[in-house]
């Protein structure tokens, strides 16, 4: 779905992302993992067209020339949903459809059922919803235009453990049911291995190792990989 060749990002003299090349296969879930400042969110923002990188980025087999069009084939979800506080859940969800003049009212019901959102919750403002409900609304909003790809930036990090576990199940289920390609960013190894067996571990703006959790354990490419695994085990 995505093909990245020597993609890098720098702001002035600060290097946010060192040259990286990778493929994101259609229908699969890829997880970007690493500590804060590792460049994982920057890489996701490149895929969402929010940051213009050096290098060649292809989407759906062709280099991207018009982001405005490509963005409609991508759903992007950030921590806590990124909902517009002045709009109700339903208005948030329908914002882009209305802008395009599409009548997507029926699709809202469909997706709300899929994400277990109640009718009355749809007519509330973000400030009146719980963290888990906000994240569900964010996911529905991202799915409205039926994108090919879901980009998820720490979608579960702001939630408490029980809700987080429940929503993780649902999210994995949704991605599977709708057969979406997904790229998920997280700093949690357990979350990463729950979603996929294709992990990309990053550190300091560069990729350290690519592979499954089992690969990381058995054949660490760098002492940092072991350190990262041990750190999570300890807690």
């Amino acid at each position: 779905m995505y093909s990245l060749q020597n993609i890098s990002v720098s702001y002035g003299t600060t290097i946010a992302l060192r040259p990286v090349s990778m493929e994101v296969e259609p229908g699969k879930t890829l997880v970007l993992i690493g500590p804060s400042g590792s460049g994982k969110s920057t890489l996701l923002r490149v895929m969402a067209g929010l940051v213009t990188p050096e290098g060649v980025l292809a989407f759906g087999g062709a280099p991207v020339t018009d982001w405005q069009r490509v963005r409609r084939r991508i759903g992007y979800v950030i921590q806590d949903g990124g909902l517009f506080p002045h709009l109700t859940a339903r208005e948030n969800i329908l914002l882009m459809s209305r802008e395009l003049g599409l009548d997507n009212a029926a699709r809202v019901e469909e997706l709300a059922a899929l994400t277990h959102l109640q009718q009355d919750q749809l007519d509330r403002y973000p400030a009146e919803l719980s963290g888990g409900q906000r994240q569900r609304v964010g996911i529905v909003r991202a799915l409205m235009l039926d994108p090919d790809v879901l980009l998820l930036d720490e979608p579960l990090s702001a939630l408490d453990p029980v809700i987080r576990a429940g929503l993780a199940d649902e999210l994995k289920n949704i991605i599977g049911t709708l057969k979406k390609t997904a790229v998920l960013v997280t700093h949690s190894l357990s979350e990463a291995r729950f979603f996929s067996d294709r992990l990309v571990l990053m550190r300091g703006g560069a990729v350290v190792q690519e592979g499954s959790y089992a690969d990381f354990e058995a054949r660490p490419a760098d002492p940092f990989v072991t350190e990262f695994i041990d750190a999570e085990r300890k807690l």
Partner: protein
Amino acid sequence: MTGLQPAFRIRFALSLLCLLFAFPAQAQIKVASKLFTESVILGEIARSAIASRTDETVIHARELGGTRVVFNAIEAGEIDVYADYTGTLRFETLAGEDVATDAGLRAALAARGLKMTASLGFSNNYAIALMPDLAAELGVETISDLRDHPNLVFGVASEFLDRADGWQALKAAYDLPQTDARGMIHDLAYRALASGQTDAIDAYTTDPQIAQYDLKLLRDDRGHFPTYDAVFIYRADLPAAAQAALEALAGSLDEAAMQQLNMRAQLGGEAEAVLAAEIVSEVLGETVEAAAQKSRTARIWQRTKEHLVLVGIALSAALVTAIPLGIAAARLPRFGSIILGGVGILQTIPSLALFVVLIPFMGIGAVPTVFALFLYSLLPIVRNTHAGLSGIAPGLLDSADALGLSRGARLRRVELPLAAPTIMAGVKTAAVIAVGLATLGAIIGAGGYGQPILTGIRLASTPLILEGAIPAAILALIMQWLFDLAERWITPRGLRLRQAA
């Protein structure tokens, strides 16, 4: 294109502004007066004389401003008539030109499209005055006699102290030995003299205080002071009947009569219009009804309307200009610092100076006042628009972009609604400031609540000052309250919930 768009909007807003200003000028004759009582009385006399002899609508812009403001206004054709003094024209307004003779003075005025009547019959000259008992005790009759009393303390008008033909020239002309001369406001100089804090002052010979305190005026035995004959200055294109009415007033008022009028207005509180009606009926034989004094409620209502028009137009124009400027400043950071710096500098121009500087370009009255208020309203609105847009969480902008919203849709659907409360707070600040600043408009003839404040200062009347100051304060509070409501109304419900949470 994005660089052009704000510029286009600015142009659009400015042309809108010009439209607002392009009210068709009504055909009417406009008399004006300077900031002191005698000038206002003479203005009323001119107004009522012209009104009695012509069918024209004649209005009087009272207390329009100082010598410079009024002369600029008549040169620019903003006003048609005002009263002045030959000495002032010779030594101040037209100083340096060949105006020593009356013919020279008339020629210099004619070159500006102006004419001058013959003397109205009195001159308002400089004189040196003492309290009567002190003068008797010292036995002084002439200014020369002062040489024998070197320890006398002078209290003179600040202007007299500074002017080349003032205190220094007087000292030189008479070899006066006194060294203690203090500058102060003219009206206060009389009080200092009466209370014995000073021994001698510079008086104007028609001041009512001369009679009030029975002051001794010393004879100018060396003929030092020039003559300040009172005359009307008027535009040469004034209708012939109006010119004739003014010329008919020449020679009609002697010094004692003028002093009496000043006394009745300044110390007796009689309306200038009533005094003027008396003089015009006497001199021209026309029956003139002095316009009935409006009730206080009617006056305040009238001024409230004037004040609201000034503030309303200025604020609306500022809104349509400042919000696009604030958006441009937030969008283009480099351009933004220029815009914010620019409107910031505008704010630092002293308001009195700005009003006067605008006169040559915009004349007097409501137009320059509205323009000045407009300029002062820009900063709070531009700054708050910029701050409101810059303060939006980056994650929300990312979400908007990732959804595929265009820049315009993002601005309309997301950024402006989120920034609305902050923008509104800026508008509120601008409105409250404008209500206060608009009172200054009265000094260039814009009316409003500043008018009674100005008159009150001139007549030393606290009730009159309060008649302007209290409504201005109340209007500012009402503005504050209304915009608080508007702010709540314009803040999207979802944002109010967030603030409560």
